[in-house]
């Protein structure tokens, strides 16, 4: 690799006394050992509770949300048994209603975004050449709240009182008049709790992108996954307050006696639909854009060429979300709103197709112009492109207002949303796990089982979900616990049930593959796929400090530079800033990634866990009306927060001598 400019960069004027030392830190050198000792978490349960390492947090997110995926999947299979034939009574209507609600809640809130947060938490600092996220403790806190919120929302499931209003939980059905049990309170409080996790996690991503990139990782060099997660995070910061507010108002209506949604007292049921979908639609993009980013970054590795149209793809990512903010009414076409308003929202919904086609043609061109390597991840990504197109096309059909008056609330929508959520989220996620598994664990996954898992999942998925379009066109409404044979939906439902079980078998093969490969997979090198991005420049799995020296980046493809005919500078991954005085990393300027400051990163801490726990207990107290308990938990939480924020000496700048050398 050609040498790069590694003169110590000028650091922010606030710290004139300190210039970072530069040098090399090969494996086994003193500096490397010092870094390892500094960044390592304590062994045992102490380290497990206190770690703030983004890699640990990311993997926890991935594992936890996958557990939720499996739970939600089992719920779906029970639903499919009930619907396999007409007039069955495997489930009572109430059991069915709780199951489909929990299936939706689990998949949409507890799986689809958290899994992507997991990928992004794990990968961002590695992709960006940093040693951690901007706020590592906030990151750990975000995970704990997510975990507790998930458990909270399932707390009433065993006693048969799970949320039963559907995942969009329309009032007045979910209001105090028509839903008297704890079911909806659990959902409402759980959603407010989960909103805390999503919001702090999103803030962390935004700040990380703008301050935590390696020198030279300019804004037009960050991987598309980063664009996807950034876009999702900005959107979440804007729209999660809307849903948190909606659920909080609903809880007030139910428990305190307010009338926000109570018609008899001047409340408005449509207010709920607006507040929910103002959040709900951008959320749909939040749970697919990072997954599309996974494909945009990983597919090129298997095509042996860079992504076609990086800039177009980054812009399309943001355009999708920008338009996605103005389409929530397409969930409300049948509510009697004026047709002029409907036309505008219908046209905006169709316009989403434009950035989507940028993405599709970019992926196809990447495969066309590349030399595909037929490994398992490639199959998942190529299969994803087809599912993305099918889900997009059915989306166009539902965007046409008059046609949506027919399609809305039928199985056509169920088909559409599963093509979108499974096709654009689950397939990239599973492909992404196959791709990054060696980085996560240091071992490769089994290829043979991998190909089997793809084909069984892909065929099972299409057999299961494609006929749902047809069921919708035959008029089958959503959320019915059974149907009569005279409706003509018998065979289509039987096929769907068979397909969904086949799909489940595919997922099972994948899980077996994970379990087996964890123990017996072949050892992975640093860069087993010969990929281009920075996460492959460090060992598999990465050391706790990620990079012994902070990389200096000169292009979008630091590991392919010598083979891409790009002129100019070369990235330097072996020599650079060492930053070994405690946990440190470099902070750079938002656009062109010039070094600006040395960030002192926090040590491991129990406070994120305890703050998360106490906040969750506040919600438990609110749910059970244990007001004293609530107050006690809030006080404990305040103490935990004070401990967290207490100024600490070790975070101050200590090294003051210029050019100090390390032995």
């Amino acid at each position, binding site marked *: 690799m050609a040498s790069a400019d590694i003169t110590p960069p000028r650091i922010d004027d606030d710290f004139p006394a300190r210039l970072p030392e530069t040098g090399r830190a090969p494996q086994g050198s003193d500096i490397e050992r010092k870094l390892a000792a500094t960044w390592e978490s304590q062994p045992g349960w102490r380290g497990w509770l206190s770690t703030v390492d983004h890699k640990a947090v990311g993997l926890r997110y991935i594992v936890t949300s996958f557990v939720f995926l499996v739970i939600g999947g089992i719920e779906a299979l029970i639903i499919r048994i009930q619907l396999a034939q007409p007039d069955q009574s495997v489930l009572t209507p109430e059991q069915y209603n709780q199951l489909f609600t929990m299936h939706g809640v689990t998949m949409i809130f507890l799986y689809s975004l958290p899994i992507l947060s997991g990928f992004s938490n794990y990968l961002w600092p590695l992709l960006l050449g940093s040693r951690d996220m901007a706020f590592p403790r906030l990151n750990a806190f975000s995970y704990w709240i997510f975990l507790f919120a998930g458990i909270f929302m399932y707390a009433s499931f065993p006693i048969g009182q799970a949320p039963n209003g559907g995942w969009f939980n329309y009032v007045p059905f979910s209001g105090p008049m028509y839903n008297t049990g704890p079911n909806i309170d659990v959902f409402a409080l759980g959603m407010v709790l989960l909103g805390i996790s999503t919001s702090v996690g999103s803030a962390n991503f935004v700040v990380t992108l703008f301050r935590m990139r390696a020198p030279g990782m300019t804004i037009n060099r960050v991987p598309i996954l980063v664009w996807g997660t950034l876009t999702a995070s900005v959107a979440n910061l804007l729209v999660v307050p809307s849903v948190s507010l909606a659920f909080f108002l609903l809880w007030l209506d139910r428990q305190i006696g307010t009338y926000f949604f109570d018609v008899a007292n001047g409340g408005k049921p449509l207010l709920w639909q607006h507040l929910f979908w103002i959040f709900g639609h951008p959320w749909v993009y939040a749970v697919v854009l990072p997954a599309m980013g996974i494909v945009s970054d990983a597919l090129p590795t298997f095509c042996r060429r860079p992504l076609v149209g990086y800039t177009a793809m980054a812009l399309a990512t943001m355009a999708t979300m920008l338009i996605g903010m103005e389409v929530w009414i397409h969930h409300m076409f049948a*509510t*009697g709103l004026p047709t002029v308003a409907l036309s505008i929202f219908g046209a905006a919904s169709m316009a989403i197709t434009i950035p989507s086609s940028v993405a599709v043609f970019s992926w196809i061109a990447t495969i066309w112009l590349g030399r595909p390597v037929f490994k398992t991840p490639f199959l998942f990504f190529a299969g994803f492109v087809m599912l993305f197109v099918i889900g997009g096309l059915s989306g166009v059909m539902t965007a046409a207002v008059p046609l949506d008056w027919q399609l809305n609330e*039928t199985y056509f929508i169920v088909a559409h949303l599963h093509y979108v959520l499974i096709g654009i989220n689950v397939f990239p996620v599973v492909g992404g796990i196959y791709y990054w598994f060696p980085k996560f664990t240091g071992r490769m996954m089994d290829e043979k089982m991998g190909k089997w898992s793809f084909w069984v999942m892909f065929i099972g998925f299409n057999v299961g979900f494609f006929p749902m379009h047809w069921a919708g066109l035959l008029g089958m409404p959503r959320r019915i616990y059974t149907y009569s044979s005279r409706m003509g939906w018998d065979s289509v439902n039987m096929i769907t049930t068979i397909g969904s079980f086949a799909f489940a078998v595919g997922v099972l093969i994948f899980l077996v593959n994970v379990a087996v490969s964890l123990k017996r997979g072949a050892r992975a090198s640093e860069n087993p796929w010969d990929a281009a991005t920075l996460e492959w420049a460090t060992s598999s799995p990465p050391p706790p400090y990620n990079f012994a020296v902070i990389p200096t980046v000169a292009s979008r493809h630091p590991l392919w530079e010598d083979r891409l005919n790009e002129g100019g500078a070369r990235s330097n991954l072996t020599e650079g800033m060492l930053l070994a005085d405690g946990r440190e990393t470099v902070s750079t300027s938002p656009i062109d990634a010039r070094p600006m400051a040395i960030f002192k990163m926090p040590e491991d801490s129990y406070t994120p866990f305890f703050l998360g726990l106490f906040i969750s207990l506040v919600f438990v107290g609110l749910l059970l009306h244990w007001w004293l308990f609530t107050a006690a938990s809030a006080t404990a939480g305040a103490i935990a927060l004070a401990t967290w924020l207490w100024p600490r000496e070790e975070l101050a700048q200590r090294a003051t001598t210029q050019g100090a050398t390390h032995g």
Partner: protein
Amino acid sequence: MADIRPAACRPSSAMRRLTRLTLLGGLTFASAICPAETLHAPLNYFMHSFGPAARPTMYLGWVLAGISVAVGFIIAFLLIMAVRRQRPTAGEREIGREDEGMQWIYMGTGISTCVLTALVVYSMMVLNAVAKPPEAPAVTVTVTAYDWWWKVEYDHPDPAQHIVTANEIRIPVGQPVLVKLKSADVIHGFWVPTLAGKTQAIPGLVNQQWIQADIPGRYTGQCTQYCGAAHARMGFEVIAEAAADFEKWREAQRQPASSGVAVSEDSGYKLFMDRCAGCHAIKGTDAAGPHAPDLTHLNSRKRLAAGLLTNTPDNLMDWVTRAQQLKPGSRMPSIYLSEAEGEALSAFLSKLD
């Protein structure tokens, strides 16, 4: 289904088996969805429409579905070609150039945008065509959704002429009919797919939907907005008949129950007044319960329990005694009746025509 196997890569026997399975699956799928069953699916709005509020939408559906299938095949073709096409040999470690391929995005997005713009215009034209009836509706029906049935009212300036019925909307053929939609409890969805799209019935609002049937017949409707336990069993029917028949029906419905109904010595009548009249009303008697379907002309209706059962005397008594088994969660309790009581009530109910 896209087969994205590589040309260069020799398929393993497992892969070959899977391909065969795919083909087999496709064939099974095609034969299993037999047209006999689906053609006559009563809510099949994709292939049937019987009025001007539904027909333009059906054509829009065909055009959009056609374009979607075509685009799906084009993309599948491109994807398979992209995967399988012959490539010049290259070194193991060679990496393609970054700056090529933009014409794919320009072409693809350009064509998509043109098609899309046309579709936006077309769908707005359809919207315009189906949003409002071409002429002022001659008949107005007020439909109020309840958990889990539909109250149907035909207003008349004279309250005595006001018609209240349930789960069955009669309309004159060939004329637009305005349906005013209300809800008594939660949000429901009013949908007669072969006549028009759906509209939510929202508490506190009066929504409007117009329907028109061009040929006489029975058109099935269904609640489409999830509304709780018996959402699946919340159907109804629109019955379109010639104007003269409709007028005859309307005249009959305006009448109170016949004088032979309210006979205080009749044990069936007494039973009804004791056990049923708290919820159900019969015009011309003291039964005035407002919570459940008006039974004045019960036997003029084709179906029972919001579309669940055909209206026969046996089904009716089955419904009265086993409502909770037939429609779990329904507001109608299963009513225990001795054999004598059952016969008396049945005889009484048979007079409600």
